[in-house]
């Protein structure tokens, strides 16, 4: 079938411009002499220097990273053993649990956010780092389970049987046979949990306390009162880290495509 290559490329270019413009503009203005994000008046690195003196912004960044790391580790551990347990065992209420696990994925985030806020208030749990991390764990676990599930589907059942025949205990089998073969699913689940945590605005908005200001919440309040260009600098630094990660991921997976000759 003949395809119109020119039209294809025009559309691809336009959509990618749309996708990257809002980010590109922030990177460009992080080097801008002018305080106003309107015209590029000259090159400077002042905003990067200022960034290191902006304790509010840095504290928000550190909070964001703490929440993301802790919630990713915990939700990956719970998600992995849960996916395996739900596959291996039958028990009362399993069907209900399987349905419940999709709820955080399909319902609007705001409903999850306010329902967690309500239950914390009911349990007299004060809002702060703990409630924030708990909420992030709550919305991450289902995504980890889905990712690990797809790895379990492709795992051969013979593997576990062979381990059992050879006299390995159930725990030994899990740690030495099951876990290694589920690793790709676990890693992609953890990656997703980490990204979701970094990106979350809505659920954090309702479940963070005064001592647990995260970067998105900080920027949200700054947009109302006025954003300083050191935010642009911070965003640029973050992007640089993300791009490095993606570049490594891409070069590994592209090499795999090449090797497999797809």
């Amino acid at each position: 079938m003949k395809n119109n290559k020119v039209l294809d490329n025009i559309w691809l270019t336009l959509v990618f411009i749309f996708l990257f413009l809002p980010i590109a503009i922030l990177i460009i203005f992080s080097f801008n002499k002018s305080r106003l994000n309107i015209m590029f008046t000259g090159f400077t690195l002042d905003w990067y220097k200022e960034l290191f003196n902006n304790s509010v912004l840095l504290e928000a960044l550190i909070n964001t990273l703490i929440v993301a790391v802790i919630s990713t580790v915990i939700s990956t551990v719970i998600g992995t053993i849960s996916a395996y347990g739900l596959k291996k065992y039958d028990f009362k209420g399993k069907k209900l649990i399987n349905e419940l696990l999709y709820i955080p994925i399909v319902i609007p985030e705001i409903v999850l956010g306010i329902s967690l806020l309500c239950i914390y208030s009911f349990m007299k749990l004060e809002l702060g780092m703990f409630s924030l991390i708990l909420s992030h764990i709550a919305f991450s676990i289902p995504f980890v389970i889905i990712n690990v599930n797809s790895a379990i589907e492709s795992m051969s059942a013979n593997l576990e049987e062979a381990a059992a025949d050879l006299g390995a205990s159930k725990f030994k089998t899990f740690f030495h046979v099951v876990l290694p073969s589920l690793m790709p699913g676990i890693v992609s689940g953890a990656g997703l949990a980490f990204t979701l945590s970094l990106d979350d605005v809505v659920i954090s908005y309702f479940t963070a306390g005064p001592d647990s200001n995260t970067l998105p919440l900080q920027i949200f309040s700054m947009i109302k009162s006025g954003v300083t260009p050191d935010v642009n600098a911070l965003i640029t630094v973050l992007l640089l880290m993300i791009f490095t990660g993606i570049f490594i991921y891409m070069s590994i997976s592209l090499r795999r495509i090449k090797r497999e000759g797809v």
Partner: protein
Amino acid sequence: MKDKLHKWLFTLPVTIYSILLILLPLVYIFIISFFKSDSYGGMITTFTLSNYIQLFDMVYMRIFMQSIIIALVVTFICILIAYPFVLAITHKNARIQKILITLVMVPFLTNSLIRMYGFVVLLRKSGVVNTFLLGLGLTNNPLKLMYNNLGIIIGMVYTLLPFMILPLYSSVSSINKSLLEAACDLGANKRKTFFRVILPFTKPALFNGSLMVFTPALGYFFIVDVLGGGKIMILGNLIKNQFLTARNWPFGASISVFLLLITFIIIGIYRKTGGKLEDLG
């Protein structure tokens, strides 16, 4: 004995989690949606339907309609952008496809509020786009690109577009190439091939994508706050205000239950038509 321990260890955490952090919170907001609020932001534990009756007030009905229309428009625009985009990608070879799809994901690894701030810089009255257009003499007065419905729609389309692109891409790229060649050999033109082969084949993915775009679009209050300028409200803003500003939790809870109901109806239709929950992740 040890087997039993193994079973407990692998099933107890998920049981506790799904009851404590999913079921209980939702049941709780359902319960408080029947409570009464007192004037100090507290709740009186009596049974009343007044929060649900209040939903039918014209003021709120207008906001519901507005949210649903915005979400529908956003979903429709996402389909219009994503379909030709995905088709164009699948015309490339495997290596380039992989690169392009990863590139789609890149902006979404930065926080969504950061991207919305990028749009503020671009779209505001003295923003980059207006400065550019005025400088070129394409317009004499700055265009009103945000603090209106247009700004909200741009922000939401941007934020939700990958949720349309990704399922569509995995569906279109799984169409057997020989199917398209057969259509071509049998004399179907491109338009006919699209409507008779590609569209029916990708219908489930299209529904999946629309679901993942439409539901969040009802709740993303922060996009409306940042790009809508505070005058326009959607369901998400209404819920947020009831909980944090007006402190009328029972009424806020009844709006949330209403929003949940809309979501469950859509998912019900999705599953009735053969859609699987597993595909929604």
